């Protein structure tokens, strides 16, 4: 039972954070929405009403179509790759091998690096130069006689985005491994033993017992990776600079706003990004809160 006096004190103590969140998050979202509905172009603010024109123009904009396509490719490859590799690593580590702690840290470390650093390293690894100027991974392939593996990486027409996703998988699969490992360890040993007594094979145990029990973990990982890939910006810029072939909404937002001074269009892209991330996150948060309340 909380006393009234405590209630007031609690309110006073959290009010600065509430105020800060209201101003610096919600007020700015509101302001961005207002800008996205305006004709603002150039350095001087111009709040002339423009209705939804910025949005309809974006949907007809061939560059935005490229952005959406690139985001879908990146999200697909990155999320699927990280989940599969992360699960595989977690299952391997769960076999009780020696030096588990060492490998766990090894796989987790890339996560501690910023996307910029990852980008700079992979920019070099995925150098697409051919002929006498081979370097990075292509040079390695040529040393070990696997010349056919040499790739144009992120400069591959249309599918270059998948190469960028490789770098992101390298960085984030350790994180999904940690999530899955925790999930695997939380499954009671008795369930596995019971299945073994019933004559289930190792594969059947994973398919019918472990995977269903890991569903909440998969969902969490999916949401976290998914919203990261919608917002990806720094990794692409670090690997490839600002090339239209590897354009995503966040880069278009930057260029429209700061290079082209199309503030209305930039804000509209920002709002679309916000909506797509919210569409992913809000149902998840509601679901999590509901399950927690039930427990």
């Amino acid at each position, binding site marked *: 039972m909380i006393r009234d006096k405590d209630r007031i004190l609690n309110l006073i103590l959290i009010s600065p954070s509430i105020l800060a969140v209201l101003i610096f998050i919600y007020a700015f979202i509101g302001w961005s929405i207002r800008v996205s509905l305006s004709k603002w172009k150039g*350095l001087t603010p111009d709040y002339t009403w423009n209705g939804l024109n910025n949005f309809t123009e974006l949907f007809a904009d061939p560059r935005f179509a490229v952005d959406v396509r690139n985001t879908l490719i990146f999200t697909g490859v990155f999320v699927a790759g990280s989940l599969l590799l992360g699960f595989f690593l977690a299952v391997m580590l769960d076999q009780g091998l020696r030096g588990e702690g060492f490998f766990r840290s090894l796989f987790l470390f890339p996560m501690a690096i910023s996307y910029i650093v990852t980008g700079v390293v992979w920019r070099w690894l995925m150098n697409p130069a051919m002929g006498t100027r081979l370097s990075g991974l292509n040079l390695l392939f040529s040393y070990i006689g696997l010349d056919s593996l040499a790739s144009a990486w992120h400069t591959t027409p249309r599918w270059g985005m998948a190469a960028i996703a490789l770098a992101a998988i390298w960085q984030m699969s350790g994180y999904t491994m940690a999530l899955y490992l925790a999930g695997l360890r939380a499954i009671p040993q008795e369930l596995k033993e019971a299945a073994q007594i019933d004559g289930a094979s190792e594969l059947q145990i994973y398919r019918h017992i472990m995977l269903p029990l890991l569903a909440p973990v998969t969902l969490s990982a999916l949401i976290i990776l998914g919203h990261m890939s919608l917002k990806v910006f720094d990794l692409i810029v670090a690997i490839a600079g600002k090339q239209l072939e590897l354009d995503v909404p966040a880069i278009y937002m930057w260029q429209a706003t700061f290079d082209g001074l199309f503030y209305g269009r930039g804000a509209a892209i920002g709002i679309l990004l916000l909506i797509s991330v919210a569409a992913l996150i809000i149902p998840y948060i509601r679901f999590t809160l509901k399950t927690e309340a039930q427990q």
Partner: protein
Amino acid sequence: MNKKLFALLSTLILASLALAACGGGGAATQAPAAGGGKVEVFSWWTGGGEAAGLEAMIKVFNEKYPDVEFINAAVAGGAGTNARAVLATRLQAGDPPDSWQGHAGQELIGTYVAGGQIEPLNELYEAEGWLAVMPETLIPLISQDGNIYSVPVNIHRANVLWYNPGILEANGVEVPSTMDEWFAAMDTLKAAGVQPLALGEQWTKLHLLETVLLGTLGADAYNGLWDGSTDWGSAEVKTAIDNFAKVLTYANTDSASLSWQDAAQLVVNGDAAFNVMGDWAAGYFIELGKTANTDYGWAPTPGSVGVFQFLSDSFVLAVGAPDPEAATSWLKIAGSKEGQEAFNPVKGSICARTDCDKTLFGEYLQSAMADWSSNKVVGSLTHGVVANDSWKTEIDTALGLFVSDGNVDTFQTALVAACTSSGPCK
């Protein structure tokens, strides 16, 4: 008891935070000390000859104005891509630096003057006698309605074709002076197994496009593109785009992953025959220890012989500059003979002033000085002279889409649309 202590502590912390905030506000509004003052100058000169040149000019400034503190607010990033975003944010917030770097031309007029962010400098020009020493072609580009808005410090040339003399000689190829000669030369080189053209990331493609437009259309029609008198939808522009598409077929396949330095280096290392880049490449070649006319040669880009496609860095005075007096002192140095002679030989550009001492400059720059005073002068697109930022960004987007889908008609339609939405076309 503990709770009371906690409440007391929280109150104290909140109160001290509030006091600190007030203290900060008080300090910011404090007037600069008499006789001293400081000037914050914003640029994107952070590396190589650019930074060294700026340092040399700051040294001259410190000798002349020892009481004024110089704050170098440079932000890294080629061609100012990152710096301009930082600047735009500061201008939005009403927190301008005293003076900043801007390309002479529409980047200045169409962006900062249109936004009411910079002060006219006519009085300074009269007091310093700059009208007599600055080139006549330059003044209209930094003026609007009779007001002059910036102080140019240097001139660069954009339409330079760099080549590897050894490769050309070995394959019996002459330096091309027209588009057709260029294509013939590159066909010969390609057949001989030589990489004909070195190309880099997207902005270097925009740079190449503007030189092909100039080389195909000629100086007058090229100028007409920017004032609306040349139709972007015309057959001539279509020919230029076809030429550009053809030029791209001679380029290296990994262009998207190369910076301009990487691409230029391919020529001096003997990995490619030609490269189109501004004359800052000469400074880079010297930095690499290469020799003019042996490791690298230069010519105007094909079709632009006798034309000097230029760009110029200039400095402005902010509206609401924190210290306008110190800022004016800085501009005096930036426009002075002494300041420009200290800056340009190091940066690898020629003086905006016409009275600089020629003997201070290297072989390439002396030839550029001769061309600057004798050639027909046109402005660069990529480097902010002929189009405002919005227009340039729209052209850049259309170019990016063209590079990935190769559709000439869509490209031309997009260029027409860009001129209508952000340029002078109706």
